[in-house]
């Protein structure tokens, strides 16, 4: 007999809690060691969003906030699969995303970057993975934007993602980057990830999903925490 144990964060690829080059971590990262928790029902379960009626265009950010025309910028298709470390697909799980517009401006009221808002682009969406763990979004390639971390700091182009997975241990909030972005080498949020994990955050250009005369394709797969078996004691 054996017991299923969900894996912890793999700190060989996960960022540390404190990364002083990303200055906001200095006053916000826990300083005391985490207490290892014996997993119980709470960790073996998580919210199920299957009952929600997603809007018709929730997965299509080029359409879900149109007022009087098409959003400006380069249309892209982002697709991929959600699996766990064991390679098992995660079906019917909620993926939420949010991002800046093509000029690098967020709709969020706190964002004061002096770049134009797009009246036809909100920059948020969501979908469920299908029975094979597959997802696909249509959106606009987000622009780079400045931030106050250090002099002349710019975030590389990125899309924020939130995933639930099969249970609370699977919960993941992350950012997807684009191949060849020259800002990656200067970004302390990206660089907080150990070198072994960095490639996992960069999407791949995907000609096979690129839609002729319409949108460029990118592939980004998510790998959530998996599990292993231990013998019953």
């Amino acid at each position: 007999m054996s017991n299923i144990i969900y894996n912890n964060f793999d700190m060989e690829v996960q960022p540390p809690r404190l990364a002083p080059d990303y200055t906001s971590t200095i006053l916000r990262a826990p300083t005391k060691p985490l207490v290892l928790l014996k997993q119980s029902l709470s960790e073996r379960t998580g919210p199920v969003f299957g009952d929600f009626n997603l809007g018709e265009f929730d997965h299509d950010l080029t359409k879900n906030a149109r007022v009087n025309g098409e959003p400006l910028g380069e249309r892209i298709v982002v697709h991929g699969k959600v699996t766990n470390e064991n390679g098992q697909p995660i079906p019917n799980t909620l993926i939420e995303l949010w991002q800046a517009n093509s000029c690098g401006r967020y709709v969020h009221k706190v964002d004061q970057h002096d770049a134009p808002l797009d009246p036809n682009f909100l920059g948020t969406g969501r979908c469920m993975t299908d029975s094979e763990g597959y997802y696909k979004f249509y959106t606009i390639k987000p622009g780079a934007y400045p931030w106050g971390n250090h002099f002349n700091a710019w975030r590389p182009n990125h899309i924020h993602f939130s995933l639930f997975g099969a249970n609370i241990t699977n919960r993941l909030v992350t950012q997807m980057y684009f191949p060849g972005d020259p800002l990656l080498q200067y970004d302390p949020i990206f660089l907080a990830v150990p070198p072994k994990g960095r490639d996992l955050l960069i999407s791949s250009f995907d000609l096979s999903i690129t839609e002729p005369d319409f949108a460029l394709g990118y592939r980004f797969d998510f790998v959530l925490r998996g599990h292993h078996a231990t013998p019953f004691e």
Partner: protein
Amino acid sequence: MENSTAPTAATPRIGGLQTPSQTVGPYFAYGLAPEQYHYNFRSLTNNELVDPLQTVEAITIVGKVFDGQGNVIPDAMVELWDANNQLFGRFGTGTDVEKRFIFKALKPVSVNGDAPYLSLILFMRGQLIHSYTRIYFSDETALNANDEVLLAVPAERRHTLIAQKTGNYYTFNINMQGDNETVFFEI
């Protein structure tokens, strides 16, 4: 060059290394809690795990999140998970005038003699990985005193996990750092 009619697909990444976590950043609200922050997008969830108008036994949980200098954090996102009742809620600390998070929930019940608790997940700018903790309840003294998880926590830090009952609500403040740093769990 051979004439390729089928375009080359990007190589899938199935299983293997975990996708690294990145911060939720400061601008999550219009995507993850749009109605709370008055954006024109429907929220999938909110801070009412139960409808307090329909559920007389609903409890209120309020709290603030403090940084290492004792300043209230106005851009945190808090999620609550009630495993037994399969209830979930989410609330950002940016809309309340005091920058509190506020939840309506059911008081959880003891399972297998464990002290009742709710799971709490915390996200914010300045956190590269979310933090996980639990809310226990001050009016469960006997169960708290014998709870396996609470006993695994150093005695002087246990109080950081216990919501204090005042009238009909519970207060659960979260300190990221300092003498009263909240206990966070590795799960």
